[in-house]
């Protein structure tokens, strides 16, 4: 890849413990290209979210990004940013959708407020300006503007997730990180949302770092895929390649364990 | 608001968390303590420190009939109420008839001794008695005289708060009244205005002794009657020039046993003079005074219970014959107990009755009366050491009082107010008619001869005869030792000489200067004060 938006180099992250540390991410390196839909898959606890958090530097103690790690966004090392730089960088360059739609909106602020605080903090918009912009953004995800005055609990789960996506797009970020954004939704809504993301990505040209444990979904939406196992990135490649010709035994095992909707119930490798 | 040129005296006579405007002189417990004397002046003030000498106030004299069956008070001429209306014999008659109609107002039960009250002339009133009584004047003057023209209009005198009193005393004008402070100022029509140099008295609200001490030290109270711990250190030392006190012996505090105690075995012991004497000798009075009383009380080792307070009446025979039983003497007490058979019968280490039944003394003290609780705890030490089984209970004071009245206790500490004549404490304590009615008669002990003597005492005018009777009474009491005197608690009196002089003290013992509401002579003190220019 010639011009990656995000390049992660030797990323090592520990969770500091009482006596010994837990190595959640071990020396991981990969790139996400411009406009690319990059999927990061792996089982629960393998360190996917830990990587996602590191990119926006959202970790709190006891997480520790070890020295020697590099997170380059368009060549700039995110780990070298100071507080001010970090604040500007967040959301403007990298926006993030979290796992649970129910919980990623502040329950005591109206939807409008939650647009406003981003637009105000980064673009210095007034209430009226941010309202207009928010209405535009909501339109992108098919939500009427009057919802700006609603509180999160007054919207359905799918709607909330779309609102979050709209907020993510507020500043035209270069990278959108989605950490299991649809786990709490049913398949129909999930499909709808991913399709919309895909359309928007093509329209607006941002890259997506997509994290999930649903391999079928992953292959369906991603251009390239990284497979993680216990903190290590065991395999990276084109989605179809990894699906059709997995190299790593772990990847193979994963595919094997996945029941299919069509054809044989399991792929042949399954019969252990 | 008071002008600074006025002479204002700050005093404290009662502890309260808030002032309630009530100057009803008949409502003894609920009206302000400056109502008597200062608003309603007595006819006569009897001075206990001067052997009961009379200071004539509203009355210029009184005359006891020869048969002691009536007494006539002669009022001063030209007396006026504070609103300018004349004060006449009619007001006196009205007052006494009034309290007869409203027995709830008769807080001293004076009508128990009277048959009628009649106006002799504009300034004379005769009180007719139902039996001869040479001391009746002492009782009659305790009743405040109220103006007929006001009180005849009052619908319910019991609940009447008398917020703007019309009185006869020196300080009748309520110039200020807030929950935190009130002031009484000069009565413009006061008959003795020439002797009065204090323009106003101010009563700041103070809830307890600690606060009062703070106020005393700050100079915001100049005349007080309050217990002050370690007074030389905590009060005098802050301004030795002006901070002074003078404590005079007052009410008698004594251990009392119930002769009708509910526990039969206790009763046996209590009815035995030897046991009572031993008990008395086991009480370490001086330690109690020093520790529980901060050394303020005056020890009372007089088995006839008169002590220092009624020194003038003392019969020397008492000390000679029974003096040893009034003093702490541990060994003698042990010897007496052993000799009388109060030994350990059942081997539990505790003394029992001679017949082997157990004695179990529970000393009752009202809860919260800490100096008494301390005193009991100290007494318990020697009693326990002597092998007696003693414990302490601290019931609520109301329950305690009720038990004392009923004689339903085994041992207690009790107090007896001081009076101008020992006749009063003796009568209060030993009159069988009061058993079950008054806590002062808590021991339920009496003696026929004693009562005869007391009854004749008031029917006699002759001083020598009276003395002979009083002497005999003392011997009877001292021999029987029905109560165990411990000390006379002091009448507390703290004062400040910065703004006023003329205070009564040991060098100038004119009268008792205590500002408490039961001390009539506080009026004399007020009139003796002179502002420092």
């Amino acid at each position, binding site marked *: 890849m010639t011009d990656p938006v995000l390049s992660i180099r030797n990323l090592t992250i520990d969770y500091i*413990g009482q006596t010994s540390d837990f190595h959640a991410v071990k020396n991981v390196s990969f790139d996400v290209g411009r406009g690319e839909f990059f999927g990061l898959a792996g089982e629960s606890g393998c360190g996917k979210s830990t990587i996602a958090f590191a990119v926006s530097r959202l*970790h709190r*103690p006891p997480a*520790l990004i070890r020295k020697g*790690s590099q997170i380059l966004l368009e060549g700039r090392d995110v780990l070298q940013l100071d507080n001010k730089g970090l604040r500007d960088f967040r959301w403007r360059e990298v926006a993030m959708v979290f796992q649970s739609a129910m919980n990623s909106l502040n329950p005591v602020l109206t939807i409008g407020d939650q647009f406003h605080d981003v637009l105000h903090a980064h673009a210095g918009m007034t209430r009226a300006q941010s309202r207009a912009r928010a209405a535009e953004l909501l339109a992108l995800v098919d939500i009427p503007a009057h919802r700006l005055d609603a509180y999160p609990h007054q919207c359905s789960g799918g709607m909330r997730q779309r609102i979050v996506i709209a907020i993510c797009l507020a500043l035209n970020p270069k990278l959108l990180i989605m950490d299991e954004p649809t786990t709490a939704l049913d398949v129909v809504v999930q499909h709808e949302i991913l399709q919309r993301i895909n359309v928007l990505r093509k329209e607006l040209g941002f890259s997506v770092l997509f994290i999930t444990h649903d391999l079928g979904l992953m292959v369906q939406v991603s251009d390239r895929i990284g497979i993680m196992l216990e903190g290590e990135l065991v395999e990276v490649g084109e989605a179809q390649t990894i699906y059709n010709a997995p190299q790593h035994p772990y990847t193979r095992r994963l595919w094997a364990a996945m029941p299919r909707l069509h054809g044989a119930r399991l792929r042949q490798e399954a019969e252990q | 608001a008071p002008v600074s040129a006025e002479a204002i005296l700050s005093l404290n006579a009662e502890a309260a968390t808030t002032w309630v405007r009530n100057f009803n002189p008949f409502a003894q417990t609920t009206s302000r303590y400056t109502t008597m004397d200062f608003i309603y002046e007595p006819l006569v003030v009897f001075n206990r420190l001067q052997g009961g000498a009379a200071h004539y106030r509203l009355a210029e004299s009184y005359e006891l009939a020869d048969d002691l069956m009536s007494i006539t008070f002669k009022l001063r001429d030209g007396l006026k109420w504070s609103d300018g209306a004349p004060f006449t014999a009619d007001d006196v008659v009205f007052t006494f008839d009034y309290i007869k109609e409203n027995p709830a107002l008769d807080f001293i039960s004076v009508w128990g001794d009277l048959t009628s009250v009649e106006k002799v002339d504009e300034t004379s009133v005769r009180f007719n008695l139902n039996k001869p009584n040479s001391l009746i004047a002492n009782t009659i003057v305790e009743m405040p005289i109220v103006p007929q023209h006001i009180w005849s209009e009052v619908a319910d005198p019991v609940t009447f708060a008398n917020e703007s009193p019309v009185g006869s005393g020196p300080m009748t004008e309520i110039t200020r009244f807030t929950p935190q402070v009130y002031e009484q100022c000069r009565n413009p029509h006061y008959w003795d205005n020439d002797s009065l140099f204090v323009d106003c008295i101010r009563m700041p609200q103070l809830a307890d002794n600690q606060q009062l001490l703070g106020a005393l030290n700050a100079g915001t109270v100049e005349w007080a009657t309050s217990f002050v*711990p370690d007074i030389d250190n905590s009060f005098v030392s802050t301004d030795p020039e002006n901070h002074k006190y003078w404590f005079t012996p007052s009410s008698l505090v004594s251990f009392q046993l119930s002769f009708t105690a509910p526990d039969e075995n206790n009763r046996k012991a209590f009815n035995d003079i030897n046991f009572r004497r031993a008990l008395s000798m086991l009480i370490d009075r001086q330690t109690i005074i020093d520790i529980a009383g901060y050394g303020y009380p005056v020890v009372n080792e007089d088995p006839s219970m008169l002590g220092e307070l009624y020194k003038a009446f003392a019969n020397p025979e008492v000390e000679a014959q029974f003096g040893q039983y009034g003093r702490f003497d541990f060994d003698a007490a042990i010897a007496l107990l052993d000799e009388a058979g109060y030994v350990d019968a059942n081997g539990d280490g505790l003394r029992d009755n001679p017949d082997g039944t157990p004695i179990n003394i529970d000393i009752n003290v009202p809860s919260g009366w*800490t100096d008494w609780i301390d005193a009991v705890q100290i007494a318990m030490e020697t009693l326990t050491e002597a092998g007696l089984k003693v414990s302490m209970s601290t*019931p609520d004071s109301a329950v305690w009082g009720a038990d004392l009245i009923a004689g339903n206790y085994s041992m207690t500490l009790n107090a007896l107010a001081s009076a101008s004549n020992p006749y009063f404490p003796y009568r209060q304590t030993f009159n069988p008619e009061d058993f079950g009615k008054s806590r002062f008669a808590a021991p339920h002990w009496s003696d026929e001869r004693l009562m005869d003597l007391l009854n004749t005492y008031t029917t006699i005018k002759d001083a020598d005869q009276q003395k002979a009777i009083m002497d005999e009474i003392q011997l009877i009491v001292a021999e029987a030792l029905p109560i165990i005197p411990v000390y006379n608690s002091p009448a507390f009196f703290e004062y400040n000489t910065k703004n006023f002089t003329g205070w009564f003290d040991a060098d100038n013992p004119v009268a008792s200067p205590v500002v408490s509401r039961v001390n009539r002579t506080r009026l004399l003190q007020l009139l003796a004060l002179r502002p420092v220019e």
Partner: protein
Amino acid sequence: MDVLKKLWQNKKVLIGLAIVGTLVLMAIFAPLLTEYSPTRRVGRPHQPPSWDHIMGTTRLGHDVFTRFLYGARTSLMVGLGAGILITVIGTFLGILAGYKGGWIDEVINFFTNMVLVVPNLPLLLVLAAFIGQVNPWVIALILGFTSWAWGVRVTRAQTLSIRERDFVKSAEMLGEPAWRIMLFEIFPNLISIVGINFIGSVIFAVITEATLEFLGLGDPNTVSWGIMLYNAQNASALVVGAWWDLLAPCFGLAVLGLGLALINFAIDEMANPRLRTGTILGRWFGLVRAGEGKL
């Protein structure tokens, strides 16, 4: 087992246990630690601390240290007694209301909220005054029967959430009797709440007993920290400068309270790992400072 090990690793718990343990030992071995009796005069009134009387003497000439030791007995026993009572009642009603639901819950919940709304101390004050001369055990009893509401509330809330967990459902589907479910399935999951409730109740009981006695509603025959406060206050210890008379019980109450509070805090941390800080964060800050990494 696991829990105890975790507790053991918590510094707060260790300090708390040390404090409370020391006090308990001092109380138990009071007769060995002092030659005096707590109810006999052994010196002149209000003597300042000296070798003979390391905490001075009271107004009556009792040895303050001796009274301090014996007072600890009372405070600890009342605290424990009331604490147990409060916890038992609170836990029982809480689980019952939370698990059974329905009208049982309605009734229990009503009374719980009701009791929570009535200010506790004033009520106790009135009760104590009406009963009159209450010894520490009576105080413990009144405390037990008036202070369970908080326990019921938290236990009930927790039970409500546990009741929804599938293991309770599965026990029900197996046909476990209700009492077994409450006692063996739900209760063990409430241990930390019960622990917090217990320690909290002990603190509350110790404080309240002392307060009631300080206000003069206790039995002056007892030797306890509250009575010591009351006596010191009555002897105007502050005014006459006998600070030791007042400070000794204050010290006892403060230290006991602190010890128990530390334990409580630690149980809280144990029950809720997010609250835990301590060594982990210490190491973390150390590594960051050493430049080993960043956030």
